[in-house]
């Protein structure tokens, strides 16, 4: 405290431009002096607000303590009363070189989740050890957590050297103990410092009590840490955060986690494996940039309109993320309920959410000794290696190569219960097994030809695409046509909302994008039925010509004459009067949004192969017209003759 004259002169710092900001977490066992060190740093750098020192003296006296620096940080009444830090806090100060934000993390074991919240964002860490008490349980656990959280720059600070007579021997022993522990985690401390935080020895000024030490002070060490930057040089990863259509642009929004993205780049979406070019990077109140780097939140538009949803990962075609439905994780557990094999959790990885099952607990790690042991559950505050399995295929990265897309959190109900980093060692990339890339698509000639199928069935395969307003009679006609064709010996099947939404499209909602994707999948499924020799009837409003044209394209890959668009026509007033499902009423009241004919457009087919008018013709007449059309276009000569 008497060292005021020897403080670094912070008035000489540059103020004409933003300085670097070093994010630094202070960890260690409870009561080893984390908050005291921070309080002392604030004092020594003239960072305490006017009047704060006086306030601290008063608060300390009120509780019968000598000056307690930690009260500068412990903001809650409960923290001051119990003289412990409950939740992580942040505080700013300036060194001659840069700004530092210090994250004070609680040392108490029960506040692990708060420690993690503070430490995960840090560029570097200070691990505080009490010279008298030595390495304790939380010293090791925090060291381990720094390793799991990916904090690689660590200064080991041995505090309270005054309690051990500033002994170089004691310092050497402690340093040996802690460095061998950290070495077991692959962590090599950047600095090893003997200090007395209360008295300011080696904090901002070199200690006169420890002339045997000639290394940097704490403050000097802070200036030598590296401020971490987002990994620009690594492969591109842009997890899709959202898709906006505020105007006629369809903007895909997200933050680039690694790499560089440029306008004109060809992008690969995973796990859907769609490939599309970037049209432009979008911006407001600024020129659209031509490229964007890791760390930037961006918006992009694409050359083609493809269905994209939150959670997909954008990469370049080279260096895509591995696809997998099983992975190993190094995990820390914060749940009140233990993790047990067979239990399901929600995984959040970048912007992706998926259900995963804890399959196997490979080992539980004792953070004291680093010794692995087996166990059938992972208790709160433990760390373990666990195999997880998901039902869907996930685009992930190896944590050690791409940290930001190789780590995840787990939720149980509403609560975050764990965090982990991914290792795929021993698990193959499922991408090759799952995809047919445009670069290696060879259509395999089926042993059974379309001609043979048609000969056996007596008719060629095809798609009868019914389109029209809700209530126009599409489903009624489809079912009746199917029944009659079946009786005649046709291979026939109806795809409608009921059977498609239940399975194939169970993951789709009713947003414009999802409706478009619904129709796309129906078109593809119908084309497969046609290829299999079936007459496939689809009954969907399918209001947009573009969607129907795409379905036509899919069927025409089977046969140029395979697709027949049938306009099931009835005017809107008639349909609204029928209202068999009560949907028009709901649409009029606003309960259903974007309802075709009421609040969303219907584009009638420009050139349908057939139109039936259910407003003016009976069901029987309409069915007969459709069956006649089918017989003329799909039936082999022999059958139509008979």
């Amino acid at each position, binding site marked *: 405290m008497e060292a005021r004259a020897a403080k670094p002169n912070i008035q000489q710092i540059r103020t004409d431009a933003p300085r670097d900001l070093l994010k630094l977490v202070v960890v260690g066992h409870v009561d080893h002096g984390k908050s005291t060190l921070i309080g002392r740093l604030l004092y020594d750098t003239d960072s305490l607000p006017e009047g704060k020192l006086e306030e601290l003296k008063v608060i300390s006296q009120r509780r019968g303590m000598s000056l307690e620096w930690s009260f500068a940080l412990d*903001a809650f009444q*409960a923290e001051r009363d119990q003289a412990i830090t409950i*939740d992580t806090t942040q505080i700013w100060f300036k060194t001659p070189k840069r700004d530092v934000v210090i994250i004070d993390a609680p040392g108490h074991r029960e506040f692990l989740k708060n420690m*993690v919240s503070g430490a995960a964002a840090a560029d570097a860490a200070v691990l505080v050890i009490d010279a008298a008490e030595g390495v304790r349980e939380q010293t090791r656990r925090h060291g381990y957590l720094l390793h799991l959280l990916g904090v690689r720059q660590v200064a080991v600070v041995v505090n309270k050297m005054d309690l051990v007579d500033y002994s170089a021997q004691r310092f050497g022993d402690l340093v040996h103990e802690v460095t061998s522990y950290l070495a077991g985690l692959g962590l090599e401390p950047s600095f090893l410092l003997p200090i007395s935080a209360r008295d300011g020895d080696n904090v901002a000024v070199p200690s006169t009590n420890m002339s045997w030490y000639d290394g940097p002070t704490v403050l000097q060490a802070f200036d030598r840490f590296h401020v971490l930057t987002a990994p620009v040089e690594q492969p591109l990863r842009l997890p899709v955060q959202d898709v906006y259509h505020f105007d006629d642009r369809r903007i895909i929004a997200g933050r680039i986690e690694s790499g560089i993205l440029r306008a004109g780049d060809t992008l690969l979406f995973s796990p859907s494996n769609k490939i599309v070019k970037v049209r432009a990077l*979008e911006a*407001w109140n600024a020129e659209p940039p031509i490229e964007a780097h890791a*760390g930037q939140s961006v918006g992009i538009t694409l050359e083609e309109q493809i269905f994209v949803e939150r959670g997909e990962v954008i990469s370049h075609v080279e260096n895509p993320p591995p696809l997998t439905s099983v992975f190993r994780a190094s995990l820390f557990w914060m749940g009140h309920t233990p993790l047990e094999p067979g239990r399901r959790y929600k995984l959040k990885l970048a912007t992706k959410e998926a259900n995963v099952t804890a399959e196997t607990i490979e080992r539980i790690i004792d953070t004291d000794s680093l010794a692995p042991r087996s166990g059938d559950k992972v208790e709160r505050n433990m760390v373990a290696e666990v195999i997880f399995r998901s039902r869907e295929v996930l685009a992930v990265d190896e944590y050690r190569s791409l940290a930001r897309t190789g780590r995840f959190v787990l939720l149980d109900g509403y609560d*975050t219960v764990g965090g982990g980093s991914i290792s795929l060692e021993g698990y193959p990339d499922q991408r090759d097994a799952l995809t047919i890339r445009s670069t290696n698509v060879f259509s395999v000639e089926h042993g059974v030809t379309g001609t043979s199928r048609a000969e056996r069935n007596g008719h060629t395969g095809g798609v009868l695409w019914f389109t029209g307003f809700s209530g126009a009679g599409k489903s009624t006609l489809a079912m009746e046509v199917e029944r009659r064709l079946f009786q005649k010996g046709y291979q026939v099947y109806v795809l409608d909302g009921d059977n498609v939404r239940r399975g194939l499209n169970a993951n789709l909602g009713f947003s414009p994008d999802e409706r478009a994707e619904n129709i796309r999948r129906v078109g593809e499924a119908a084309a497969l039925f046609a290829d299999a020799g079936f007459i496939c009837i689809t009954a969907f409003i399918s209001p947009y010509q573009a969607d129907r044209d795409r379905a036509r394209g899919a069927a025409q890959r089977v046969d140029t004459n395979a697709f027949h668009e049938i306009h099931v026509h009835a005017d809107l007033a008639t349909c609204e009067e029928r209202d068999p499902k009560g949907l028009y009423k709901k649409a009029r009241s606003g309960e259903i949004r974007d309802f075709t004919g009421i609040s969303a457009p219907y584009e009638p087919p420009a050139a349908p192969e057939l139109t039936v008018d259910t407003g003016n013709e009976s069901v029987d007449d309409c069915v007969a017209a459709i069956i006649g059309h089918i017989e003329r276009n799909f039936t082999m000569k022999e059958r139509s003759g008979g």
Partner: protein
Amino acid sequence: MNRLDELESQSIYILREAYNRIDSLSMLWSLGKDSNVMVWLARKAFFGRVPFPAILLDTGNELDEVYAFRDQYVDEWGLDYINAICPGYEETDPTLTSNARAAARKTLGLKRVIEENGFRGIFLGIRRDEQAVRSKERVFSPRGEDGAWDYKDQPPEFWDQYKTEFPPNTHVRIHPLLAWTEVDIWRYIEREQIPVVPLYFAKDGWRYRSLGEKDITRPVQSNASTIEEIIAELETTREPERAGRTMDHDSEDAFERLRQAGYM
């Protein structure tokens, strides 16, 4: 990327996360420098739009210049504006000091506007460096059914994974500016040329450093009449930002009690 670029990008990420994950959002627009930066960041995040309402918790006691600023920028920024009238002094907790009771009117006003509109998420422009209790906040900070902050058991928040799942009848406060400092805010205002209420600039040796209501906010001594001068002043001052906000200073835990009950 420099420090402002990083802060901007992170705030945009937070705004977009909330917009995607939480139904029925709104933003508190106190008209102070921070909330103007927040509106600006929302326009960046959503390509020129603020796709949720902006609320002023109006006690009728804001400074005249503040109301004038509002009237101009509601239109200019195309905001979907809600003027939320706060309940009177007599409805506040009588065990608080009179300064704190004046501030607590906003807490009640906020509670009311949330209930009336069924909001599940509220953006607030608070920062960790403003005040020690605020420094303990999470970016996504869940509130109980009564709007209270359970500061002793906050959810973990790391790796940019935020709490976006909640039981019914609760809401979440979202703090896109939590990591910014006062100087960062001014440097960003300077870089982006964001309009602010003129009371921040010194006149006759006094300026407002933090804007609150007429009766409980005082100007501070200063000759800083431009943004550059404000930045230079802040880089060296040891006066806390909220020195002019009387409600913070009545007792050791004055601000903590206000916040626990749901104050911003």
